[in-house]
């Protein structure tokens, strides 16, 4: 009970920082703007292609095009790339700024545990990121409003879940990196490089690859998005993301604790 309240207090405080500074607004703006642009391009492409498909239909060929496959899926994939850039913005100051301002001493001498601090900060970042995803999904509401045959909603939900889980992995790692330095720029750049590294692990996925490469590819965060975005919720993917997040938070917690001994 007290643990929950403590975590809640940290979340609330971080949200005050996010929305008391330009960070939240810039992140929301970049995200919704890019979501809109990707949505517009994917939609135009879909219209052109479906027009051509309709012409072919007259000659008895071509399947009916799915909005899910042609519109929503590519946008989700593109937004995963945007998450790579936005996540460091959300996490870089979480611990670095506390250390620079000396306010870490306030948190460390308050009757709350290091784990509660780490969790609170992580959940605050996830909350803002979730809000960004929801704001982006508003674009899709248009499709429901205007389409004669609306797309399936389940893949949209699982796609949003994929984005949330995928981004949360970055956020967890970002929280860890932020504990390492008192300079938020350093934290931001390091996080970005680390995220990029984890991202590229997925590229090792090649049918001809050896067992080593296969194992590396499995660790890549992108590999596990495919099925979710298609609408297939496989427990093994969800478990992968959750364990990745737990690992990131574990590193962050260890780092915060060990700094007391080294300080």
């Amino acid at each position, binding site marked *: 009970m007290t643990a929950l309240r403590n975590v809640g207090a940290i979340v609330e405080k971080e949200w005050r*920082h996010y929305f008391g500074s330009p960070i939240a607004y810039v992140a929301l703006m970049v995200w919704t703007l890019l979501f809109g642009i990707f949505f517009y391009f994917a939609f135009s492409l879909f219209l052109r292609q479906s027009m051509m498909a309709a012409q072919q239909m007259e000659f008895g060929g071509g399947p009916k095009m799915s909005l899910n496959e042609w519109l929503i899926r590519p946008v989700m994939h593109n937004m995963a790339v945007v998450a790579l850039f936005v996540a460091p913005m959300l996490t870089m100051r979480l611990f670095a700024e506390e250390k620079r301002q000396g306010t870490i*001493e*306030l948190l460390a001498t308050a009757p709350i545990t290091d784990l509660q601090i780490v969790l609170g900060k992580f959940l605050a970042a996830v909350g803002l990121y979730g809000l960004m995803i929801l704001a982006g999904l508003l674009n899709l509401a248009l499709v429901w409003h205007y389409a004669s045959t609306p797309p399936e909603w389940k893949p949209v939900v699982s796609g949003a879940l994929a984005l949330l889980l995928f981004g949360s992995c970055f956020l967890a790692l970002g929280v860890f990196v932020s504990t390492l330095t008192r300079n938020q720029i350093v934290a931001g750049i390091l996080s970005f490089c680390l995220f990029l590294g984890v991202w590229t692990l997925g590229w090792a996925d090649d049918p001809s690859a050896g067992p080593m490469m296969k194992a590396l590819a499995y660790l890549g965060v992108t590999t596990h998005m495919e099925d979710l975005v298609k609408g297939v919720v496989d427990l093994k993917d969800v478990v992968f993301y959750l364990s990745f997040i737990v690992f990131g938070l574990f590193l962050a917690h260890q780092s915060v604790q060990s700094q007391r001994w080294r300080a």
Partner: protein
Amino acid sequence: MIEVENLTKRYGRTTAVDGVSFRVQKGEILGFLGPNGAGKTTTMRILTCYLPPTEGTARVAGYDVFEAPLEVKKRVGYIPETPPLYPDMAVDDFLDFCAKIKGLPAASRQGKIDEAVGKTKIGDVRGKLIGRLSKGYRQRVGLAQAILANPDVLILDEPTAGLDPKQIIETRELIKSLGGDHTIVLSTHILPEVSMTCGRVVIINKGKVVAEDTPANLTRRLRGAGALRVDVRGDAAAAAEAVRAVAGVVAVRSRSESSEATTLEVEAEAGRDVRAQIARAVVGHGLDLLALQQVGMSLY
């Protein structure tokens, strides 16, 4: 209330605190006196569970800082040297956050905040962003944060550093008024501050306790060994000679010389008051005595 035994803290090869032991009774105000880098802050950080000790034990209200840090933290209010504040938060929001992480129940939270705001006289800046406050107000917001949960023990690291004289007096008054209900440990490097607020003083230097006594006793001891500053007009060499001839004077240094006046720094034997004799000697040699002042109040 506080029991510190043989406390040692090493950072790599440097020893910041070396076998420090002291006790503080309930309701007492203890002054922690020493030069910068003496280990005051480190000791305080151990007492507030911010740092673990390398050796030795520290207990606050019967709880060991290492074994039961959460219990200790619940009972301790702390302001570090620079008060830990979020510049982008309003004073009220900040205190509300502090009240939450200090575990104050929702029902009594607002009342406690109002009380702390009243005691530290920050009512007129409650709605302002902390980043826009003056140094004095920030210090007081830090103090409000420390007394918020009405802790048994208050640990204040140089609470008057960087304040103007009026604010210093107000802060000292506030600290004094808090004694009795709270057990207070405060650090400073200004001796008069200790004599004005504290019931007992621990002097620490290079990580070791060098003296522990009441301020009155310490001042008495220091006064004996203290230096005198004598401002004289007239022949500088003759003046130095005249003062040196006074019985009980150990050394005389001529500090600043101008055509107008000479300042002599006089060191006297411990426990001997030679002020009257010096005055007589200077005047007796036909020189003008402009000022005679004790300067041995400070430790260094």
